[in-house]
């Protein structure tokens, strides 16, 4: 069983690697400017907030929950920072207050999900509207800029060598998430809860606490992302980071994380982040508009779930035709299948 899971994951990730290689080759064909340190830094730099958020979203989706409110929370903390700064609060304290507020909002989400047991889909949907609304209350239709120079520098490339501060944060966070998810007890809890919440509870795992920690972290990282976005853009409006959740969820699901929770790896998400970034970069170099890019990301999102389903259907079909040959493995597969449909039932789709 374990061996098979591992082999399947290997296949999904190697598929991603093949796609990535194809995208890179296509990009090289399209533009001479593609290869070069500047473009590669730029590639990360322009979506740095999204890819940072994708890391924490991976943990949440593996935990069989979803957080739709992250983009609004990014907007809210960016707006809160700008509003406070505009009111004369020193930038350092404004940053701290924005981070604290983001964490608090994450805790708020987490409370309803973990302790009141409301579906995360609705809670974070309400959060999506509510936090964006709060951002609108703060900034109305103004845009606020003119932050101190050191703050703006945080958002620019060439902070350390060619890298920006955000990229360094991303690299550190990626390593931390990789270690936490795959090499610590907490990471295993995240998987077990995602696979079967009730079994996890009976096994003595603190389900509520784990979910609470994840959503609080999500709030903290969202507001960090919002601040990085504010630093990168230099000005803040109430609609910053709107619709970011599409890209973020696409990156996670394309990375082989099941929307029903319980499966997926950090390496896969890392690869899919590279795929999405390179694809967008290539399309930009080929002069495709942002809307075409968004449509392509939408198609990727659907394909990332449709393709594994098709594989499974084909495999089931072939198992069906050679039923007598391999009775055992088919039973195994069916038990896997029912397990998955069970999770479908218990978690809102």
């Amino acid at each position: 069983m374990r061996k098979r899971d591992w082999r399947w994951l290997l296949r999904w990730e190697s598929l991603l690697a093949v796609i990535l290689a194809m995208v890179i080759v296509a990009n090289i064909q399209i533009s001479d400017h593609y290869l070069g340190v500047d473009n590669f830094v730029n590639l990360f730099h322009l979506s740095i907030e999204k890819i940072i958020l994708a890391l924490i979203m991976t943990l949440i989706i593996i935990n069989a929950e979803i957080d739709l409110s992250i983009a609004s929370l990014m907007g809210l903390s960016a707006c809160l920072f700008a509003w406070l700064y505009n009111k004369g609060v020193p930038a350092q304290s404004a940053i701290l207050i924005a981070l604290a507020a983001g964490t608090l909002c994450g805790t708020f989400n987490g409370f309803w999900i973990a302790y009141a047991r409301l579906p995360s889909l609705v809670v974070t949907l309400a959060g999506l509207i509510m936090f964006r609304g709060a951002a609108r209350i703060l900034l109305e239709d103004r845009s606020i800029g003119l932050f101190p120079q050191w703050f703006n520098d945080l958002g620019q490339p060439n902070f350390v060598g060619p890298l920006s501060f955000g990229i360094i944060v991303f690299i550190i966070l990626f390593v931390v998430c990789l270690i936490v998810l795959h090499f610590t007890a907490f990471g295993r809890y995240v998987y077990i809860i995602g696979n079967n919440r009730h079994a996890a509870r009976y096994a003595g795992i603190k389900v509520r606490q784990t979910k609470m920690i994840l959503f609080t972290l999500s709030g903290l990282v969202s507001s960090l992302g919002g601040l990085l976005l504010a630093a990168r853009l230099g000005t803040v409006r109430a609609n910053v980071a709107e619709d970011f959740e599409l890209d973020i969820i696409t990156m996670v699901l394309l990375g082989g994380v099941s929307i029903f929770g319980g499966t997926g790896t950090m390496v896969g998400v890392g690869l899919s982040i590279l795929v999405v970034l390179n694809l967008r970069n290539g399309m930009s170099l080929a002069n495709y508009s942002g809307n075409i890019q968004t449509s392509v990301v939408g198609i990727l999102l659907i394909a990332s779930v449709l393709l594994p389903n098709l594989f499974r259907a084909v495999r089931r079909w072939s198992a069906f035709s050679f039923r007598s040959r391999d009775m055992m493995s088919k039973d195994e597969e069916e038990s896997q299948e029912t397990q998955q449909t069970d999770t479908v039932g218990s978690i809102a789709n």
Partner: protein
Amino acid sequence: MNRIRQIIRPEQIRELSLLLIILLIIIFFGSQIDSYYTSRTFQRISSAVMIIMVVAVGETLVVITRNIDLSVGSIVGVTAYVAGEQVSIHNDLPPLALVLLAVGIGTVLGLLNGILVTYGNIPSIVVTLGTMAIYRGVLVEYGRGENVLVRDLPDWLVDLPRVNLFSIGELDIRLLVGVAVVIVIIFQLVLSFLPYGRRLYAIGSNPDAARMAGLPARRIVLGAFVLSGALSGLGGFIYLARFGTISFNAAQGLHMQAIAAVVVGGINIFGGSGTMFGMLLGAILMGILEQSLIRMQINEFWKDAIFGLFILLAVATDALVMNRLRDIWARAAVQMREAAMSEE
């Protein structure tokens, strides 16, 4: 007490309390805004609610089957734009053909959603999050930044929102509002009395059981998505008639309002329960809040924050209060049955 329990179900208590909240809110705004109780206020609210109402009917059907449709806003945008463009070019297009065009486009887009959800086995949130972006992106590319303008539209379409169906005292019921209400009533009847409606509930409350009972679950859910698409298409037509000027980001975020109406109206997001009547109350509540906040001129930017809070409150009360009420009702029913048996 038992007699009350026999007459009223917990769901009806919820709807009654929603009605009470609406009344309280109207009284509150009436005390804050001058000349609030006029036919003009009614006109504004009813014409703001009619689009959400039509779209939320489809959303309700989808949510009852334990799915969600985030793409309705994009479908409304696409249909409004394409229908508006066609009628701008062919000014003599008959009204019925235009409506059919809008509904047809909506149906096709809904069908695509439904096929991906049912036959592709993809969770509806993934599918409709994707198609929301895809439809919008295609629309922007198709429109190339040009707007549909009021002056290109035929007169009948521009005048349509002001056509009166009938008047009650000073309140004018507009034709389009009437159409929206009729659609809500029709689908309430479908949900209550047609086999298809009952099957939607069956699938939503327990998909596995429904499948084992022999219901063609896929086809029924597909039907719900197709209906949602078709009603969004109709919503797109009404949107075109009401606003006239349609840009590529028309109706962006409408799915949020539709889902807000559905959730506040007491349709369980896990499927299997809820009525069109509840949705109607939810939509009206949202419409009153939206229009009245704009008129209060304190800060219309409060709208979204209050919407979000209402959604959360609605879900929280559903989870905390409604379940307890249902328990009480169920327990009382058991007691009564036992009492009846001991009498025998």
